């Protein structure tokens, strides 16, 4: 089974069975995906796996030595937790190598009813320090934690000295600037909650209008950005929008940049990180193919002591801009 001993595990997104095959072919060690309902945090129309598709996809991935993780990482709706419970049972039956969970009640359920199932803690649980991580390890035997995008490389190294599980970190794709799983901004504007319904700034709540020379994007009742016609406009994710403070317009929360931590891989590996995660189950097959190949090359370079090529993925990032995010303290 991949990855090779001592190598960082490359964990890649798959929004469809075809994307899963593409990721496996492009060099993923592990693929993560979700069911086509509100049990996962990328609940977009036309995306994700039916029960049958998941079983068949896992079999194909396993045949090629690739692991499959199933994200069941929204917070179950009160009075209807059964939908989430059956997702866990179905993932286990389909042969998933682990499920990725965020909700404390769901973790307790999984540990009690599925004692042999490997549990990963989703980034949606926002466990940002050793005490919080060890809580999940001790109480629910979580074997891996996906770290929030709010910690620096130095903090990751310090975390590793105190925890008894593996870590996985995001290295490429969308960048949440808020603590994940603890952000109600999209819900405040649209009525659809990322935590409960599984989609942030959902397409159904977005409208674009032309106003004179301008192009205006709105999310729910609120203007997120206004650009001159012909200027590149990023997807109107709420926290990447432009707003006004004291009459001055700016990207108050974050510039529309994507996370690219490829240059930080040596530091992340030295810090004790086990796995690298690429965001983007909602992205196209071509995107996934290019990103996975680039990171495969980066990880292989690292293993052979070679330099990691910079800027290989600039064309695939939001507005062509990238950031090291919180991994570098100056970002704060």
């Amino acid at each position, binding site marked *: 089974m991949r990855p090779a001993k001592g190598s960082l595990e490359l964990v890649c997104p798959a929004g469809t069975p075809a994307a899963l095959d593409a990721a496996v072919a492009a060099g993923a060690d592990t693929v993560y995906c979700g069911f086509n309902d509100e049990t996962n945090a990328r609940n977009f129309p036309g995306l994700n796996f039916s029960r049958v598709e998941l079983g068949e996809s896992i079999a194909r991935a396993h045949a090629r030595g690739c692991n499959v993780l199933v994200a069941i990482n929204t917070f179950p709706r009160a009075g209807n937790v059964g939908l989430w419970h059956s997702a866990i049972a179905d993932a286990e039956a389909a042969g998933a190598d682990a499920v990725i969970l965020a*909700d404390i009640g769901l973790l307790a*359920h999984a540990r009690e009813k599925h004692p042999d199932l490997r549990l990963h803690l989703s980034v949606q649980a926002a466990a940002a320090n050793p005490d919080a991580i060890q809580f999940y390890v001790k109480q629910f035997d979580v074997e891996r934690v996906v770290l929030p995008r709010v*910690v620096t490389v130095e903090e990751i190294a310090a975390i590793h000295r105190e925890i008894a599980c593996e870590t996985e970190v995001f290295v490429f794709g969308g960048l949440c600037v808020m603590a994940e799983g603890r952000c*109600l901004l999209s819900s405040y*504007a649209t009525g659809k909650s990322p935590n409960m319904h599984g989609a942030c700034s959902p397409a159904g709540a977005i409208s674009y209008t032309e106003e004179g020379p301008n192009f205006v994007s709105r999310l729910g009742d609120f203007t997120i950005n206004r650009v001159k016609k012909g200027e590149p406009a990023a997807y109107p994710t709420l926290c990447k929008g432009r707003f006004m*403070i004291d009459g001055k317009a700016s990207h108050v929360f974050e510039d529309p940049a994507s996370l690219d931590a490829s240059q930080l891989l040596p530091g992340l590996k030295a810090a004790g990180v086990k796995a690298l995660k690429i965001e983007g189950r909602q992205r196209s097959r071509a995107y996934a193919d290019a990103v996975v190949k680039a990171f495969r090359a980066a990880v292989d370079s690292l293993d052979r002591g070679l330099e990691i090529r910079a800027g290989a993925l600039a064309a695939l990032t939001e507005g062509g801009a990238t950031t090291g995010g919180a991994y570098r303290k100056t970002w704060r």
Partner: protein
Amino acid sequence: MSTNQMKLVLGPVLFNWPNDIWSDFYARVADEMPVERVYIGEVVCSKREPFREQAMGDAVERLQRGGKEVVVSSLALVTLPRERHKVFATAQDWPGLVEANDVTAVAALAGRPFAVGPLVNVYNEGTLKALAGFGAKTVCLPPELPLTSIAVIATAAAGLGVETELFAFGRVPLAVSARCYHARIHGLHKDSCQFVCAQDLDGLNVDTLDGEKFLSVNGIQTMSQTYADFLADIPALKAAGVDALRLSPHSCDMVAVAKLYRAVMDGAHDGAEAAEALKALIGNAPISNGFLHAVPGARFQLRTQA
């Protein structure tokens, strides 16, 4: 549960109020405010804590003399070693309930009675049961829950002897970040922020490019610009089995706000009239209760009579 009298409680001051304003506020709470429980302590930014230590001890003492139950609130986003240490020290030192606002505090408090704040994700009866198993005695539910979910959780909570509380007045906490937006807006770094957040007693307004009132910034926290106003929803919340309503401190006359909520909760004040009175108290700031009604949280909607 609906026949019991609903409690009124005061949440922690989320803003960086100068010490004199902060101390005067708690003196008034102790002497005049009709609330049974007061949460106190820094939730948003650990850099604010050292300046508060002396005032905090005095305020706690005064509140207890005033007959209030005092719950010490802990930090919402715990990353630094000194922040972790503070959470564990509070858990060890404070004889009463400590409010967990992060799983770090749940870890520190497990095995003894504690309170769960609105920034810990309790979305369903399964999580409530797990937290009750660790010792949770009172849970303030996440602000985005609709009434249908609240009713299910409140019923489960009653069976477990856990009190359910709702964030019912004030700018709604929507997000926390590793980044300090107050510092960013002023062109400063978080590490050398000059405490610019102290300039905005109710947070810094963030409007859309079209001038719509939208959000507000409070250090690392992003809040709604609207004030939660649950006055008209009180009968429905009682029927759902909610045990307590939480008021979040602002620079307006909070004693008057508390008296208004108490009067409506006791059936001594007409809802529509109270709504007008509240508007006047908050200087006609926009109001919201959309989360309760499963519509965008920013909206205000009157419940249709069943």
